[in-house]
């Protein structure tokens, strides 16, 4: 453990010095991670072996600190008091005559304490060793090179037809439930053609009915276009006009005022 210094003076010998200024005691206590740490300090300070700790002696020293801190009305974590109680119990037990059979059945509190001290000391040393390991930010530095010249292509989400169908499926089921809207069921090429005709009419110039047909599309093409015109008319998107009997039909976008 590092030697505690207060105002430049080392306070490593605190325990033997009975008069301790309250501030120093507070610093002293803060240097410990808890009662186990304090106990370890007391044991190691006297070159004692954990296995053979003289419980009575250690308990006395520990209690001494606790009392001192209480007298100074310092805030003491509950764990310290708990340990004091545990030590007192262990000490009184060790003073009692051994009752072999009875003792075997319950755990020897002294052995429990020794085990805890050993476990804690192992971790304490492991933590110190860990702190010594080379680590990033202090001993290990990573490299970075400039990659701003690398062009990154934006990746577009992928969709397959199945997903699209499933999406529509959901819509249809919901639409059915709403039952307000019935989706029309003509061939999709008709709907596609409807878009194309509207696009042609977008410039607001009326077109002759005949000019909508491309004869190289054959019979089915003509049917698709014809159905599309009817659908557009039904949807009130276009007007089909015949200015005089037997004149050519003209198609224009419907303007709703």
């Amino acid at each position, binding site marked *: 453990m590092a030697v505690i210094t207060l105002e430049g003076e080392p306070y490593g010998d605190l325990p033997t010095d009975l008069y301790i200024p309250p501030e120093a005691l507070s610093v002293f206590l803060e240097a410990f991670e808890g009662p186990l740490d304090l106990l370890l300090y007391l044991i190691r300070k006297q070159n004692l072996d954990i296995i053979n700790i003289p419980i009575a002696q250690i308990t006395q020293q520990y209690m001494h600190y606790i009392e001192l801190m209480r007298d100074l009305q310092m805030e003491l974590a509950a764990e310290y008091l708990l340990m004091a109680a545990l030590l007192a119990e262990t000490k009184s037990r060790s003073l009692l005559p051994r009752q072999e059979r009875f003792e075997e059945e319950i755990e020897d509190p002294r052995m429990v304490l020794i085990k805890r001290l050993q476990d804690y000391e192992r971790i304490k040393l492991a933590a110190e060793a860990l702190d010594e390991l080379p680590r990033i930010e202090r001993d290990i530095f990573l490299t970075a090179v400039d990659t701003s010249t690398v062009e990154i*292509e934006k990746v577009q989400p992928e969709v397959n*037809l199945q997903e699209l169908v499933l999406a529509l499926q959901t819509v249809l089921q919901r639409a059915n439930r709403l039952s307000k*809207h019935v989706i029309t069921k003509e061939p*999709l090429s008709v709907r596609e053609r409807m*878009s194309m005709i509207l696009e042609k009419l*977008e410039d607001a110039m009326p077109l002759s009915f005949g000019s909508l047909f491309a004869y190289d599309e054959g019979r089915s093409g003509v049917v698709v276009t014809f159905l599309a015109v009817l659908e557009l008319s039904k949807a009130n998107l276009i007007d089909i006009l015949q200015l005089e009997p037997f004149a050519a039909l003209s198609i224009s976008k419907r303007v709703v005022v």
Partner: protein
Amino acid sequence: MSEQHEMPTFMGETKKIKRIIEALLFSASEPMTVPQLLEIFPELERPNKKQIQRALDDLTEEYGQQAIGLHKVASGYRFQVKTDVAPWVARLFAQKPPKYSRALLETIAIIAYQQPVTRADIEEIRGVSVSSNIIQTLLERTWIKVVAHKETLGRPALYGTTKQFLDYFNLTTLDEMPPLKALQELADAGAIDV
């Protein structure tokens, strides 16, 4: 940790300066200038500008054959990826393709099957509003286009699918999309698990 006791003693001054600068330029997050590099050396050990410049020149040559090289840019020197390997680095950075939302898929499905449609039409079918974001995304992807404007109040845009949309799904015409009627029947029969 002592400052440099591990640096081989046989290493000449020039080599040592080069080595330090190499490490600095690789660790710095920004390009470094000659004065900035000088600044790192403690005053008593500080080389002169010429020594720094020589180290930079040596390093530029040394990395000539590597996949990364030392470059001088406006704000100093920095190591950067060579152009021939840049496409591979681009593959590293290429994010996993994002996913389209359910709402977007429904919207494009409605436009495909019901075109030409206005946003209001889509909202009516879906039973919920359609965010501008979705329409924007589909327009940017060039999967839909405004084919016309409906001559009603506000002249709302009428959307239709594009040739790019068909191309993406490997279709020649929209007719090759799964027929709606069959879908409807399947839906009615509850055979398709949604």
